[in-house]
């Protein structure tokens, strides 16, 4: 069977699951979930919405159920309703089907001589003629077309593979939540849109997926919508993303105007006739800049990253799937997909690299001092995405995708581990109230250990290979520079430090756990630990697809990732060949430096938070303003609130208000006055002229008819009298004659 021609089916599996859940889920789920939780022998499991204050806010069935369950709680297996079992099969099953389908399709793609396969199912927008900027007539056509090439094949494997593991994890993590079907419906819907995004063969269809994942992100961040902060976070994510999307749409329109098409293959062909804009910002640079602005929204880069940390209000599997592994990498994918454009625009590429590096170090500094375990990981994600953009900006597209690939493993792993910790801690997220969990939840500990080593950049694990390649490219690529490299290196040190701070606060040292929570610490069920172990394996071995060229003992087959992606970035590959100008010894030194920085970060964190816990406090006191600055995230949220939310929106609101009162209302009132005046005139005319005429006519007729009317008395005898008189007159006339 030729799976390549059927790739359009890949997104449809999760869509089917989503449709089933969202259309029928409510009907199939008559009993509230809390009844299940009340059953004896149920583990008392709190997810993050079961904070202590939650019991007061939502004192009805849910909180009560958990109190009740707590009394009975002694680690039995939780009873799942038949419906839940069905959902547990359908929703992860659909993603698994997509994964298998994708894997086979990618395998078949690998057999093709030219590894690009396009399937156009049908036309969406058929031939709208319009004039391009150069005056030529073009036809705007958009197909429901699917493109499988090396780049999108990496993406679909990541999305479906890691998506499947996170689905499985969710069956354990969400087991005691209301709205089970809703959660899985949204999750499947997300996978559908994400697959549309990466399989689209044109920017317009990509944008459909782009907006769709944004919608699912919004829905899932606000999954605990009864919590105000969750609803606000969802809105924030949505609004901030729309700001970026405006850039994307404008970039797309500019592309239509200049190139006349939004189809990837045609765009690439059209761009071949342009020369690189080596100086300043030409039309292509602006186009690329607008697209990149869209990417900064979706992928949480500097001006627009503020929504991602707040997005941690969503359930942890959502943070892992959407806000770490897949959706936030959509911007990276999109820029990589536009590589042909960015290669022609070095100025914009520099902007991309600088923004990426700046975001990386900014987010890493914030992550240093956060106390919420998920927020540390959220800022870490922003930081790692910054690395990817740094790689994109210096023209190392395959490295960006490579880092996307490895990051998807270890960041999903870290998030799921943090979820497992939160699960064990009955909803506690503050690392100051953790500690010493190492032996109580060993699987979580060991997998998180692997994830942290991987992200810190210790040789042999996934993060090392991709991060080191990024640093090397930042240094050696023609568009790279030593400053970019140094920022990346510093970020690597900070990364190692904050990850080990997290590990120390959570797993080592003395327990600071509240006693009532400590009694219930337990390892997560197998549905959660098995995905953790698989992801940990990915975090260990995922990097070996892209071993540095420097390690000559490993043959070309160990660098499969680069050669697999090479056709997608043909021009970039040519650029990369130039890197030979730098000597191998430089690369060895740089590699050694980055490893050294990682080890220093780990050691310092270990020393600070394990051996001498008083040091961080004294440092914190010594540089209080700096700590406050970092703890409050450089006050970026406050600045945005001041400038945009309060300044622009409310100030603009005042301005609009006065405009509304004076001009709009004036116009409305004026129109109203005119209407009333016209109505008064009209009424006078109607009353006196029209009605007057009618009434006069009636009066006149009445006057004329009055003599006749009085004859008609209605009395029969009067009439009879007239008859008799008439007869007598008639007879009299004859008699007299």
């Amino acid at each position, binding site marked *: 069977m030729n799976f390549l021609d059927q790739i359009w089916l890949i997104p449809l599996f999760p869509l089917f699951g989503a449709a089933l859940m969202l259309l029928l889920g409510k009907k199939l789920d008559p009993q509230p979930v809390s009844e299940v939780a009340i059953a004896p022998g149920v583990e008392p499991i709190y997810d993050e919405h079961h904070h202590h204050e939650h019991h007061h806010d939502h004192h009805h069935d849910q909180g009560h159920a958990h109190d009740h369950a707590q009394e009975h709680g002694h680690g039995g297996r939780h009873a799942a309703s038949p419906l839940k079992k069905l959902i547990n099969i359908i929703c992860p099953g659909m993603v698994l089907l997509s994964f298998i389908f994708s894997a086979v399709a990618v395998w078949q793609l690998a057999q093709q001589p030219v590894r690009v396969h396009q399937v156009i199912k049908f036309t969406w927008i058929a031939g709208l003629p319009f004039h391009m900027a150069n005056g030529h007539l073009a036809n705007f056509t958009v197909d429901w077309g699917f493109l499988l090439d090396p780049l999108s094949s990496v993406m679909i494997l990541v999305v479906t593979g890691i998506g499947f593991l996170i689905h499985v994890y969710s069956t354990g993590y969400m087991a005691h939540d209301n709205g089970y079907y809703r959660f899985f419906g949204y999750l499947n819907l997300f996978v559908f849109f994400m697959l549309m995004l990466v399989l689209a063969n044109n920017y317009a269809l990509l944008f459909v997926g782009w907006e769709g994942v944004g919608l699912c992100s919004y829905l899932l961040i606000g999954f605990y919508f009864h919590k105000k902060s969750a609803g606000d976070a969802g809105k924030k994510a949505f609004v901030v993303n729309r700001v970026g999307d405006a850039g994307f749409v404008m970039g797309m329109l500019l592309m239509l105007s200049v190139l006349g098409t939004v189809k990837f293959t045609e765009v690439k062909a059209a761009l071949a006739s342009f020369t690189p804009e080596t100086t300043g910002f030409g039309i292509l640079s602006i186009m690329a800049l607008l697209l990149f602005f869209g990417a900064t929204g979706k992928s949480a880069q500097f001006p627009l990253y503020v929504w991602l940390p707040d997005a941690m209000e969503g359930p942890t599997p959502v943070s892992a799937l959407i806000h770490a592994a897949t959706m936030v990498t959509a911007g990276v994918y999109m820029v990589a997909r536009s590589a042909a454009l960015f290669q022609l625009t070095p100025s914009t590429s520099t902007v991309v690299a600088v923004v990426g590096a700046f975001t990386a170090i900014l987010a890493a500094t914030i992550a240093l001092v956060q106390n919420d375990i998920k927020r540390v990981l959220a800022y870490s994600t922003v930081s790692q995405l910054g690395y990817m953009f740094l790689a994109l900006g210096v023209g190392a597209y395959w490295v960006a995708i490579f880092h996307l690939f490895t990051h998807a493993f270890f960041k999903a792993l870290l998030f799921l581990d943090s979820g497992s910790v939160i699960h064990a801690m009955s909803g506690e997220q503050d690392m100051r109230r953790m500690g010493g969990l190492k032996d109580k939840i060993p699987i979580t500990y060991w997998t998180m250990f692997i994830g942290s080593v991987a992200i810190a950049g210790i040789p042999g694990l996934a993060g090392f290979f991709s991060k080191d390649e990024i640093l090397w490219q930042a240094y050696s690529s023609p568009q790279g520079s030593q400053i970019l490299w140094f920022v990346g290196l510093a970020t690597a040190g900070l990364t190692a430090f904050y990850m080990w701070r997290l590990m120390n606060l959570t797993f080592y040292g003395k327990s600071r756990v509240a006693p009532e929570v400590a009694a219930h610490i337990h390892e997560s069920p197998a549905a959660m630990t098995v995905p953790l172990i698989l992801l940990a394996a990915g975090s260990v071995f995922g990097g070996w697809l892209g071993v540095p060229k420097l390690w000559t003992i490993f043959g070309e087959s160990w660098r499969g990732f680069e050669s697999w992606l090479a056709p997608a970035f043909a021009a970039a590959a040519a650029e990369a060949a130039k890197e030979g100008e730098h000597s191998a010894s430089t690369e060895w030194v740089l590699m050694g430096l980055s490893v050294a920085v990682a080890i220093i970060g780990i050691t310092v964190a270990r020393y600070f938070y394990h051996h001498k816990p008083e040091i961080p406090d004294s440092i914190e006191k010594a540089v209080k303003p700096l700590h406050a600055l970092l703890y409050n995230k450089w006050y970026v949220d406050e600045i945005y609130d001041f400038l945009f939310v309060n300044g622009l929106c409310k100030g603009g609101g005042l301005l609009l208000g006065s405009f509304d009162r004076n001009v709009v209302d004036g116009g409305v009132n004026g129109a109203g006055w005119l209407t009333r005046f016209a109505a008064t005139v009209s009424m006078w005319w109607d009353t006196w002229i029209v009605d007057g005429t009618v009434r006069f006519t009636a009066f006149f007729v009445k006057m004329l008819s009055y003599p006749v009317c009085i004859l008609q008395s209605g009395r*029969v005898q009067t009439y009879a009298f007239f008859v008799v008189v008439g007869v007598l007159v008639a007879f009299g006339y004859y008699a007299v004659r």
Partner: protein
Amino acid sequence: MHPITTVHYLALSAALLLIGTVGVLTRRNIVIILMSIELILNAVNINLVAFSHAAGQVQGQIFAIFVIVDAVAEAAVGLGILIALFRNKETVLADEIDLLKW
């Protein structure tokens, strides 16, 4: 002893006609108006029979019988209307029933 001639009949008939007409025009009670109409009809009947007798022909008498039948039907319809009227207006006085006017 004078024989009864046609003139006598006609005189009786004229008297009845006069009484009936005055009754119809002056009495307020509809029952009496109907009775007066009967008088007028019977005046006609007497005329018909008188002339039939005088002419030695029988058609006039046959016609009188038709008139009697007609009078019965008319009385039946008239009284029926009267009862319906009484049910609605609770009166049998002709001058109080004056809806048919402008």
